[in-house]
Each structure stands twice: as C-alpha cells, then as structure tokens.
C-alpha cells in the first residue's frame, strides 16, 4: 500500500481543459472519494493515476516512486471501470484469474484458486464462476469487475463509480463491504462517484472537483461543516443547502452576497414567518418546502409533525455560511 501524490496536473483534450492544476496527496491507507458532477474531471484524474492517460504537465508519485513514463502494468494499480469491461470471451472465473496470471504476478495456481474463491464469496458470485461473463446481469457484472480488482494486492485501488448500476440493497451491502475490506487491508483507495452517500459513508477524505479544478480536499465532516464555496457546500447534504440572498435575515457581513443554510442551520419556531408549501414525508425524515419572503427553501422537521400546507412557521438562521458574489465562502 502506498501514498499517492499528484502535483500540478494539467490535462486537456483538444480545446477543453479536463484537469487544471490538480494537486493532492492521498495518504497511505486512506479512502479518498472524488466528488463532482459529470465533466468535473473525476475519471480523468483516475486515468492519470492509472497511467491509461498521461498528464500534459505535472507529476504523479505512488509510494514515493515517480510514475512519469511508466505503463499501467508497471504502476501496480488495480482499477474498476464504470462500464465493467469484463472480458466477454472468458468465464467469470477466468476474468477473476486474469490479473493474477499476468506476467508480472505469475501467481501459483493454488494461490489463484484461494483468492478467487475468497473474493467470489465476499461479492456473492461463487455460484456464477462457471458462467460466461456476458451471461450475467448488470449487477453481477459490476461485482465481477470489482472482484477483478480485489483479487490483487496493488499499491492503490482505483474505482470509477463501481456501485452505480447496482440496486439499492446491494449497493448499501457493498458500501459496507468495500469500506471494511479497505479498513482491514489498509489499502489506499481512490474512488470516483457523484453519490454523496457513498462519499459520506466510506471516505476518509473527499476531494471536490469543479471543472477540472480541485476546489476542496478534506474529511467528509470538514467539507460538510466548513465548505470553501457554494459549489463545495452543494456537494454534500440532503436536502441540499439552501442558498438565498445574504440580506434576507440581516446581520450579513458586508462582503457577502449569499447566505447558505443547511436544514440544521435553520431554527424553527422563532424569527420571521414563512409559509409551508409542501410537507414531504420520507418516513424517517420529513421535509418542509417553505416560502420565505418569496424565496423557496427546504428544511427538515420532526418526522411526526402536524404541519400542513399553508401553515405559518417562524424561522431564523443559526451560524449560517456566507458567500461572496463569486461563490467563495466569506464567513
């Protein structure tokens, strides 16, 4: 296992800039999740580390070793692709064996059998080992593809939205499984997703990417409680943070143009009036859609609330975030 560093990585495809001066250190044994919408540069970052693409500028080290000019095989990384990329002419077992049989590893057959059996057990695909890779459901393919990375013991695991095509139950099972595999083995894991629950539950560190730039890097709590910008604040939290003009409540610092309010930053029962537009009951949580001085906002209330459409709720901010016109946090 190893520390991974990216220093001043630039990459553009034609005229579009995919990565713009990305610098980060992925500590040894950490679980780093890259968050951001499509096109933010998450997958490109993974491909830089894997060696499938080369940066235009900048250097990458894995375990202190300079990676420039090394092939993916030489870098000793394992990767889970978003589109599974199982070898269609091979069986599930052969797919799982494939990395172990590489000229670099040349694992003895007994060891291969042991590892493949172990991983198949974890991923609940033992009964499918004899199947052709193409004769699987999407979820099974995704698990085999995760398994193909897990059979190895690489310096770093790279995963590109590995849980995206699984159903909800399997996804939450595998979230826990992946997290415990990583925690037990001390593996370094770089993980791409746009699912904030995956980020919050698994990550030791989250990197927030915005159009090729790394805007914030820290623990999930740090990013949640102390976002550097509107963009970073919007990545985590459900319901999303409410962004309103800074002056609706008063007391804003002079440079602020926007106020950011997460549900827990809105105190109900004191302050100014707002009207309930809709009560959304999710079971464990009930969301209130409010109108406050002609601005819409969403907050969370008591799951068993008696509030209904048209009721008046008084609200006031508590330790809100303030942002400047360019989105940067000012207070």
């Amino acid at each position, binding site marked *: 296992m190893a520390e991974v560093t990216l220093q001043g990585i630039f990459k553009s495809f034609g005229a579009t800039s995919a990565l713009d001066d990305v610098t980060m250190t992925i500590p040894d044994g950490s679980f780093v999740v890259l968050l951001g919408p499509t096109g933010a540069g998450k997958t490109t970052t993974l491909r830089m580390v*894997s*060696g*499938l693409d080369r940066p235009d500028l900048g250097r990458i080290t894995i375990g202190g070793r300079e990676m420039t000019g090394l*092939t*993916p*095989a030489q870098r000793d*990384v*394992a*990767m889970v*692709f978003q*589109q599974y*990329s199982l*070898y*269609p*002419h091979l069986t599930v077992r052969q797919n799982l064996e*494939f*990395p172990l049989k*590489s*000229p*670099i*590893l040349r694992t003895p057959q007994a060891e291969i059998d042991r590892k493949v059996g172990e991983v198949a057990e974890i991923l609940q695909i033992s009964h499918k080992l004899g199947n052709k890779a193409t004769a699987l459901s999407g979820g099974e393919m995704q698990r085999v593809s995760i398994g*193909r990375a897990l059979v190895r013991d690489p310096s770093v695991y790279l995963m590109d939205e590995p849980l995206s095509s699984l159903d909800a139950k399997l996804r939450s099972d595998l979230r826990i499984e992946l997290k415990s595999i990583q925690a037990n083995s001390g593996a370094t894991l770089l993980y791409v997703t746009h699912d904030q629950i995956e980020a919050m539950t698994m990550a030791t560190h989250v990197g927030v990417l915005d159009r090729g730039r790394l805007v914030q890097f820290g623990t999930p709590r740090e990013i949640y409680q102390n976002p550097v910008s509107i963009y970073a604040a919007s990545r985590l939290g459900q319901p999303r943070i409410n962004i309103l003009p800074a002056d609706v409540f008063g007391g804003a610092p002079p440079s602020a143009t926007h106020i950011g309010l997460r549900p827990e930053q809105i105190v109900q029962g004191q302050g100014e009036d707002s009207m309930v537009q809709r009560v959304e009951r999710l079971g464990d949580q009930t969301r209130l859609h409010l109108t406050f001085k002609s601005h819409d906002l969403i907050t969370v209330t008591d799951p068993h609330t008696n509030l209904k459409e048209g009721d008046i709720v008084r609200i006031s901010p508590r330790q809100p975030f303030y942002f400047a016109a360019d989105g940067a946090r000012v207070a």
Partner: protein
Amino acid sequence: MSFSVTEPRMGTKWLAGILVVGYAIITMVPLLWIIATGFKSPNDSIAYPPVILFEPTMEGYVNLFTDRTRATPQMLKDAGPPETWYDEIAQNRGTVITGPSRYGERFLNSVIIGFGSTALCMILGTAAAYAFSRFRVPLKDDLMFFILSTRMMPPIAVAIPIFLMFRNLGLSDTHLGMILLYTAVNLSLSVWLLKGFIDEIPVEYEEAALIDGYTRFQAFYKIVLPQAATGIASTAIFCLIFAWNEYAFAVLLTSGNAQTAPPFIPTIIGTSGKDWPAVAAGATIFLIPVMVFTILLRKHLLRGITFGAVRK
C-alpha cells in the same frame, strides 16, 4: 424482446421456403453439372440432349491424374493384364499410363499460394487495422483512402509493370512472388474490413488488461484477437477465395514451377483431345478446399457478414 416482429403466417413461410429452395437449386445446377460431368464417359459428357442418368466412371479422374500414351494392341498384349483398376480403365481406352500428371503439384501450388497469401494478409491486415483503429496515426484518413484506392482499378491493369518488376526481382514463376502479389491485392480489403471489426471492440477491454498487468501486445493477443476472430475468419474467406480463383496473373506470371491449378485445368483439353470429364474432375477437386474452409468457418462468416447490420 422485439415487439414489432410478428410471427409470419403458415402460407408465407411455405412461400418463402419454396423461393429459397428454388433459388438454391438454380445456383446449385452448375455445380452439380460439373460434379456429374467428372464421373461421365467422354461420350456422355458431350451427349445431346444431355444425359441425366448415366453409368458413372472414374475415367475422368484417372485421366486427370495420369499421363498416358496411345498403345497398339500388340503393346497392350505385351504389357500383360492390368495391375490396378486405373490401369484397367486406361487400357480399355487403348492407352497405357506412363506416369502421374502435373495436376497434383499444381494443386499443391494453389494450396501453398492461396493459404500462404491468406495467412500473410491476415497477419499484416490485422496489425495494420489495429494500428489504424487504436493509435493516433498521422494522416490516418488519407492513408486509409490511399489503401482503398489501390482497389479502384482492376489489378490486372498493372499487369505489365508487375510482370517487369517480377522479372527483374527474380520473382517470376515463384511461390513467394505469387504469395506477395495476392497479398498485395487483398491487403486493402482486409485492412478495411478488419478495421471495422476492431473498431467495434471497446477499447476498455484492453485498458483493463493493461491495468491487470499485461503489455499492449499481450492485451492485443489475449483480448483483442479472440474477439476479432469473427472478423478475421470472414475476411480470411474473402481473401482465400480471391487468391484461390485468380486466373489472369497466374497465367501471366507462372509456368513450370509455381503454376496454380486454374491455369493448368484448361491445358488438359489440349493434351488429349477435348477431355471434358477430366476438366470437370479437376474443377471438382479444386472446389473442395474452399468449400471445406468455408464450412469450417461458416458460423463466423454468417456473423461476420451481418455484423453491424444487426447491432443494437
């Protein structure tokens, strides 16, 4: 899962079946004619109206594979009773077998040149197609167009330059020369066909293999090649059929040493009168390798020629 397709009615099925069978019979007639003629006696072979039912004889095949000389009754008597069934057939016609004909070696030449050029064409074609498909080749589109443009004229149009070139290089009437020539003619087709097939194989498979610890060549060999098998098989059939049947260059550039079967078969007519059964026998045997090759690869061929048409 296709909802727009309805099960055809019984009458429609029968009509389609009859049409297909009818078409098959029409296309099979010349083939059956050739095969039948190979087993006819010379008289039956030119009978008018043509005889459908006849007494089969191996005479055509004996004549195809042997050289014979006309013998006087005295010579036949001296030669004694025939030792083998083919000696007997020859003696019944008043001839004695003096040795094997050259058909066997001509046929072998066809096999060497046909399969040799097909193999070379597949190796070069797959490598070129892979490079065009996967790498950033400068002037890629122009090069691809240039490769295609080599087939925009009939190959025989450049017969004279090739003839002179072969003479100066010492390639005339050699197996190597013919293999190179047929490879050159077929290569453009195979690069284009194979590039299409390789384009269809997602690049992620190779990337996965690269990550899994394999070199690019190993990834090509273990991942791309098995998946391109269909394309390679169908392209190989096209190349083999061209090289196997090619006549004009074979007449022009080969004679004593590397002559293939197509220019040899017509010469049978000249050696011992109009011996149609021997010609038909030669043609029948000549059909077999391509038929066997095609039947062996037919699953690939069917998938190959419908490739792209049925995707998605």
